[in-house]
Each structure stands twice: as C-alpha cells, then as structure tokens.
C-alpha cells in the first residue's frame, strides 16, 4: 500500500493539486495516497515494534495446491475463450475443475457440467440476448 501511495502521488501530482481557488485533478488522489501512507506506516510500525501478530490461518499445502489449480483453471478459461469460444471454454473449465481438480465422480461431473452450461446458455444467450465470443468451432 505504501508503494501504491508513491505511485499514485508521482503519477497525479504533475496534474496540479490546486488551480486558483479550487482543488485540481491531483487533489483527491494525493489526499488518499497520504491517508493510505499514514495507515500503512502505522501498520508497519505496529508489526515491527509491537508483539508478534497472530499467525495467519493459511491452508495446508494440499488445499493450497487445489485452490491454485482452480485459479489456474479460471485463468485458462480467460485465455482460451478467444480461441475456443466462451461456451466451449466454460464447459472445459467445469469438467477440468470437477473431475481433474476436485476429484468428483465422472458421471456426476458430466451431468453437473451439462446442466450448468445449459443454464448459462438459456439465461445469458436466450434470455438476456448477450453476444458471447465465438471460437474456431463457431460456438
């Protein structure tokens, strides 16, 4: 947060804090950056000088790996959508996460993926009429 405060101040300060009698474009961002820097410095000092803080409740390695893989699946969907199209990409994501990462039974996962995909298609395409990105399959 301290670094963000410095970035915001250096980027906006040249735009002017004050213009005549009125605050300029940099006034509010710099005010926020200053406020943030004070808070971050206070937290830093407390961590440095005060008693040791309570340990963060991080999950174990296996759970952390599962969460990481699910997140990687989300990123995979993001990058594969322009190539495959949004509907095929989400179906692939659902199957990968259910069967490959969360180790759910294959038949149940196939049914759950199909139900979710159909539900999404009905709501977003048929009801809301949203144009979804299509891939090389034309889907």
């Amino acid at each position: 947060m301290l670094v963000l405060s410095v970035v915001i101040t250096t980027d906006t300060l040249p735009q002017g804090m004050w213009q005549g009698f009125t605050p300029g474009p940099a006034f509010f961002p710099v005010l926020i950056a200053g406020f943030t820097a004070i808070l971050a410095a206070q937290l830093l000092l407390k961590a440095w000088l005060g008693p040791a803080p309570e340990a963060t409740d991080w999950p174990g390695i296996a759970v952390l790996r599962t969460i990481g893989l699910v997140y990687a699946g989300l990123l995979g969907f993001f990058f594969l959508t322009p190539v495959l199209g949004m509907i095929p990409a989400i179906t692939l994501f659902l199957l990968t996460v259910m069967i490959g990462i969360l180790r759910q039974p294959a038949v149940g996962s196939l049914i759950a993926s199909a139900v979710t995909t159909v539900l999404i298609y009905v709501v977003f395409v048929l009801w809301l009429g949203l144009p979804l990105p299509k891939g090389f399959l034309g889907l």
Partner: protein
Amino acid sequence: MESLDLLSQGFAVALMPVNLGFLVLGVVLGQVIGALPGIGPAAGMALLLPFTYSMEPVSGIIMLAGIMYGGMYGGTLTSVLVNVPGESSSLMTAVDGYQMARKGKAGAALTIAAIGSFAAGIAACTALVFVAPPLSEFALRFSAPEYFLLAALGISATASLGGSSAVKALLAAALGLMISQIGVDPISGIPRLTFGEARLLEGIDFLPVAIGVFGIAEVLASIERLGDMHPIRTKLRDMWLTADEWRRSRMSIVRGGFIGFFVGVMPGAGPTIASMMAYVAERKFSPKPEEFGKGAIDGIAAAESANNAASHSALAPMLALGIPGSSSTAVLLAALILLGIRPGPGLMTEQPDLVWGLMASMFIGNIVLLVINLPLAPVFASVLRIPYGYLAPGILAVSLFGAYSSTLSMYPVGIALLFGLVGWLMMKLDIPRAPLVLALVLAPLLESSLRQSLLLSLGSPMIFLERPISAILSIALLASLVWPVVSVLCQRRRRGAA
C-alpha cells in the same frame, strides 16, 4: 398517514404479477444463496445484478432486495444443520443451532429462527415506512459539505465497527478509493492513473470488483472446507416448538428485533454486528445464561431476529440519503445507478413507485420466506446435500459470465479474476472486504462533493464546521476515526490492570 397511502400504492406495484414473480424468485434465490456456504447475499446480489439489465428497475430492485433479506433466512439452515454459517450474520446461530441439532432439536432451532426473522422483519419494514420519509425530507437540506461528510462517515464507520483491526479496515477502504481514481477526472476530464492504457480511461467498474471480491474469493475460500459438509437431516414433524421453548424465546425476538433495527440504521454496522450484539445482550437477559454456546434457543431467537431486522433497517440510509451502510446495500445502490436511477434524498419523491414498491415487497417477501422456512425447510435443506464439488465450479462459471455481461468484453472478466485473488488474500489476512466495496461505490460522491465544497468556500476547509449539520457530521466522523484508537487504549489499560 401520507406514508400509509404511499405504502398502499407500493402494494399495488409489488403485487403486479411481474413484480410478484421476481419477488418470489429473489427470496427463493436468497434462501438458496444464504444456505450455500461460501457465498453470502452481497456476492449473490453482485452475481445476479447483470440479470436485472433486461428488467424494469422496480422488478430488478425488488428481486435483488429479496436476495438480500432471503439470505438472512437461508443462512440459518447451514448454521444449524452443518455448523458452517451460510453467511457471516448467521455466525451466532451456528454456535447454539448446531448444538441443538446434535441433541435432535434441529427443527425447533429452524422454526424459532424463521419465526424470529419473520416477526423482526415485518416490524423493521413497518418502522422503515415511518423512518425513511422524514429522514429523506431532512436530507433535502443537505448540500455538498454534508454529502462529503456523510459519505466519509459511511466509509469510516464501516471500518471502525467492522471488527478485526480498524487500521486494516481503513486500508481496505483506502484501496477502494485508490481503485476509484483510475480513469478520467470528473471535473477537468484529465486522465488519471491510466498509464497510457486506453481501456483504463473508463475506470474500473464496480461490478467485476464486487464479483471478484465477494463471489470468486468466497468460493476459493470455501474450497478449503470441501470435506467438512455433512448436514444433519431434519423432518417436518420435528419443526413444532414446545410451549416452554416458545415462552423462552418470545421476548428474545422482541429484544433482538429492536437491537437489530437500531444497529442496522447506523452506517457501517450491518446484520453481522447486530446479531452479535443481540446474542451478547440476550445472554444477560436469559434465565439460563449457562446454556449459551450449548444450545440456547433464546440465543438463536435473538441473533436471527436481529440480523433480519438489521438487513431491512440498513435500507433507511440507503433509500433516504443514498449512503449504503453495508456491503449488500452497497450492491443495491450500485444496481440503482446501473439501472439509470440517481440515488439520494430525491429518490423518494422522484421514484415513489420504486421506493414504496420495494418497501411493500419486503412485507410480502417476509411472508413468502416464512412459508419457505417452516413447512418447506426440509426441502431447502436438501440443497445442502448436493456435493460442493459440483456447486463451486458452477458458481465460478456464473461469476465469470456475470463479469462479462457488464461491458460485453473479457476485460471485466480479467478484473474479476484479479480481485478474486485480492479478495481471497484479504480473507486470509483478516482484512474486511466490505470497506473496499463501499469506498468504491461512494468514491465519486466523496470526491465531487469535497471539491464542490472547497469551490463554494474558495478553498477554506471551515465550510465543514460552519454549517450546523456539517459540524455535527464532522464531530461524528472524527469520533468514528478516533474510536478504534480509544478502544485499543482502553483494552490495553484493562489488560494492564488485570
């Protein structure tokens, strides 16, 4: 009397078939969303907000509000049957509810929670009908300085009352304010913090951030508890209360409802704090305080009445002043803006159908929820038997499509994914997420009213002290910033004395 006339017009709006349909859909979705661990009402509202784009604003807001208070009822199911709070305001219910369920009294716990939520919800709706109009009329006297102070108070109060560390909560709010600065300066039109990226000129939208911070982050966090979901079964015949259980709980509902209403009206203090305060207060009133934590039905009655009353009364500052007091009302406010409605004191006079239709819908919604939660509780409890390994990817999929639908591009999907990770880290580091979202919603009002105020006063900050209402709000803002420091010092002194 004028309020009652307007309320009867509101009933005419709420009872229109289309609005009634979306109301029932909203409360049923709220019930399910509240029951699912790892996704609270604010997340559910953010995920379903894009669906409202094709609706009439009244229908959309009625549905979203239904999810908000429906979630209060639904959270009880998971708390009692699984010992995992469906959402944070059901935390105290899980303490005693699960203990009752282990003793074979799950039905009684669910019944008293439903009756308490219903009675307190209806009472809070009635009070809201009479509180919101005078508050709104009073707020018409507000000008830029009052709006700046009110918005700042909304953010600082959320931080100081939000539990955990107040500094961490204020930092979360500061992050929300920083994100809001990306884009074009609202007065001069100069690009700020865009780093030459054309897509950043439009700024960062509220919706993908809320979907990421609430929806994606909560699902990622709930994956940690994937193996812990073993619901206790309950049957319809177990739902009857004994005369003794009813005698023990009826005044707890009244006390919980009162506490919930007043805590909910305060900016920053939402249903979670209300339920905790009501539970602690009830322990003092209870004839059997030693049972608290081991299955006290009066504890459940108080906590559940308080959280539902607070979820309704939190609408008072949102409707009358345009200042949300909780993360759910922040999403509701964002929905109003996205649907092209300008929130603020003028809302009640400019959009009477929407405001009074919403208020009337809450009376009907609570009746629907009572039906859902008494005879139909075992049916909804069966949702908990669907393995979370199937539900979690489905919720993530809806989150991604919800983010896409905000601007019909993959850019907000990327933003939602980024903030999903940020939100998960915030949860792990015990940094509250509500101040970030509230700050993001309130930032435009905060900045424009601050700069307008200083423009009016030719740069003098005394404008925030010279006007009577401003002076009171300035003192309240100062108190909300100083309070966490004072409370820490008092705690240290007490510990030192002990």
